[in-house]
């Protein structure tokens, strides 16, 4: 339970080194360290730093993706022990993701899924070309907090509006928040179709999702452990 260990954990995430992160996680378990502490004081510090570095243009998408993957590897190693101790890391919220109907471009959506997942959210990824009905059904099934719809094409942006309308029609909003993103999407479009949020990139999406969770009037909000 030493500072150098936390520092190494942090560095393994910044370096995007899953093998190293797993090794350090195992070391922490062998030393009897509280896994939640390993996350909060070690690995999560790294992912936050990576996000900041990305934000100011010092790190790039491949770097960020590698960091997120290292983070996921570390969490996976620590999870069994967390479950045993009953100190499992509570998800910050449940997010249903997919690309708009007719749009099969999913690189942005996948990136958002990875970052949100590394950031502590539980992700239900519906994949590509998802109909409004599928979004509604999944949101009901998993009791989602947020629904995220991605559209790359100017021609499929209308599909984002259709999802928001379907959520409204089914009485899921305002409890369920709708967020949108994608190359063609602007904050103006988000406002026009009444989305609850929009972000330009995956890191901002994490901030956006955290902020939206702060607005959710959910009784169990206090049970949720904020990460980092």
């Amino acid at each position, binding site marked *: 339970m030493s500072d150098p260990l936390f520092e190494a954990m942090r560095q393994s995430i910044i370096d995007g080194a899953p093998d190293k992160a797993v090794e350090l996680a195992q070391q922490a378990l062998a030393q009897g360290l509280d896994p939640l502490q390993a996350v909060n004081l070690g690995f999560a510090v790294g992912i936050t730093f990576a996000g900041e570095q*990305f934000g100011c*243009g010092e790190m*790039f*998408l*491949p770097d960020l993706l590698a960091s997120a993957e290292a983070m996921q590897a570390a969490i996976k190693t620590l999870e069994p022990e967390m479950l045993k101790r009953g100190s499992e890391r509570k998800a910050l919220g449940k997010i249903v993701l997919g690309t708009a109907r*007719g749009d*099969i*471009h999913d*690189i*942005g959506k996948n*990136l958002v899924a990875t970052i949100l997942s590394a950031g502590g959210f539980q992700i239900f990824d519906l994949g590509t070309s998802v109909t*409004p*009905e599928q979004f*509604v*059904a999944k949101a*009901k099934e998993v009791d989602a907090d947020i629904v995220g719809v991605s559209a790359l094409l*100017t*021609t499929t*942006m*209308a599909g984002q509006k259709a999802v928001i309308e*379907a959520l409204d*029609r*089914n009485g899921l909003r305002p409890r369920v928040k709708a967020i949108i993103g994608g*190359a*063609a999407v*602007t904050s*103006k479009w988000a406002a026009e179709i009444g989305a609850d949020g929009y972000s*330009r*990139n*995956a890191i901002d999406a994490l901030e956006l999702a955290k902020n939206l969770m702060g607005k959710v009037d959910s009784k169990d909000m206090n049970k949720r452990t904020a990460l980092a």
Partner: protein
Amino acid sequence: MRPRIQLLSPDLIGRILREAFELLINPGVRVGSAAVELLRSAGVEVEVAAGVANNHGVARIPERLVQQCLASAPHDFYLYNRQGEKAVHYGGDDVHFDPGSCCVQMLDPETLEARPSETRDLVRIVQVTETLPQFAAQSTAVVCSDALLSNSLLYNDACNGKHAPGAIADLYRLLVVLQHSDKPVVTGSFSAAGLEGMIDLLAADSGSPDRLRQQPRAVFDVCPSPPLNWSEFGSHNLIDLARAGVPAEIVSMPLAGGTAPVTLAGSVTQHAAEVLAGITLHQLAAPGAPIVWGGAPAIFDMRTGGAPMGAVETAMLNMACAEVGKHLGLPTHGYLVATDSKLVDAQAGAESARSAMLGALAGINMISGAGMLESLARFSVEKLVIDAESIASAYRLARGIEIGSDKVPSETLATAMFAQIGLSGEFLKLKETRALFRQEQHLPSPVIDRSARGSEPASDVLTRARTRVDELVSKYRKPSLSEDVLRKFQAIVDREADRAAVEEAESGKNVGVAQATK
């Protein structure tokens, strides 16, 4: 000597094609259900996983079949204008430009803010494009957010105020372009169902489906979805276009590092595999149908995840992809003359002019992208007229330094002229000067500032472009279409609007059913 730039050695082109053929076997290509049947009947192994939506499959296309399809693909073809004249030659090293498509936003030249594009914007783009010889073809450049259905195409453009269903936005764009232009059109449909109405519209304009086949007025962009995926929509469009005999332009858009290998050579290889798969589908559907080796390849921006269309590497990808197509003897297309800038500024000028020159030197048959800002999201008519100047310069450069052509004498380079005037320096008086300066020098429009020193106050290029757009629009004359053609247009648009309205209503009903079952 005509100047040319080549980026790939013959050896490298060979390697690119060898690996592209390997990719078509392993991992193979995803194809839509329309393609599955066609490929299987040609003996191609297609795996369709049980329970996969729309019966998509993974095809392993052998080189032998691809070579057979390459052999049936025409090496060149023409697009015709409304008068039935050859206007665009897809083939050889001929270079043409058309405005980019398809934006949903316009840059307002007064407020410098983006706003949704409307019918009046598309009309203005078409008017300017129609008057500029730099553009051999029109494009269906923007989606019209205000698309209103007219019951009175015959009587001017008055509308009855009924909104066109979103599902016919593609048809509506083509209608607006055909009503306002005689030039060939680069277009594309937004759905598998939308193509039929657009082909019908073109056939009505040409006089008959056969006439459209013989003298095609339009080429349709058809896009695979990188990596190595011919979706249901893309497969369908390729097959339907081939059978209608209307030219198809394959626009594959691998993003190096994002949806394709990060190396430029790797992305060119993936692009080749995607286009080869498309050509195979297309030629199996109708051997000999016109097809273009096209694309909009770009690098992948590692900060934003966007596609920087103004990057020099993006231009390099377009040039290299076209080189592979040329090696195979096919007509080519690329996406250049665009910028990532949001405004009509120095960056927009630098990026667009650079890629116009590179595209012309690469001998790409059709170069789309002029007028576009913000990667490919925003259109500016002012940028279009500035780009037209860059294109004119690019054409000049591509002609090279001419000696001994029919225009420029080759007996002597300079001595004969000196023999006439000695050391007096009176070149302006020489008949050669007067006879030749127009082809030796490209004379730009006033968009390009070459005014003498002291002509203050200096204006900026956007100001001059605004004036130029107004001048061109006032010069423009709308073509007169016969009442018969307009009546046919009306019937097609009404039919497609009804179809789309029914589809929209049915998808609404499905929502109702989904709710009821919960």
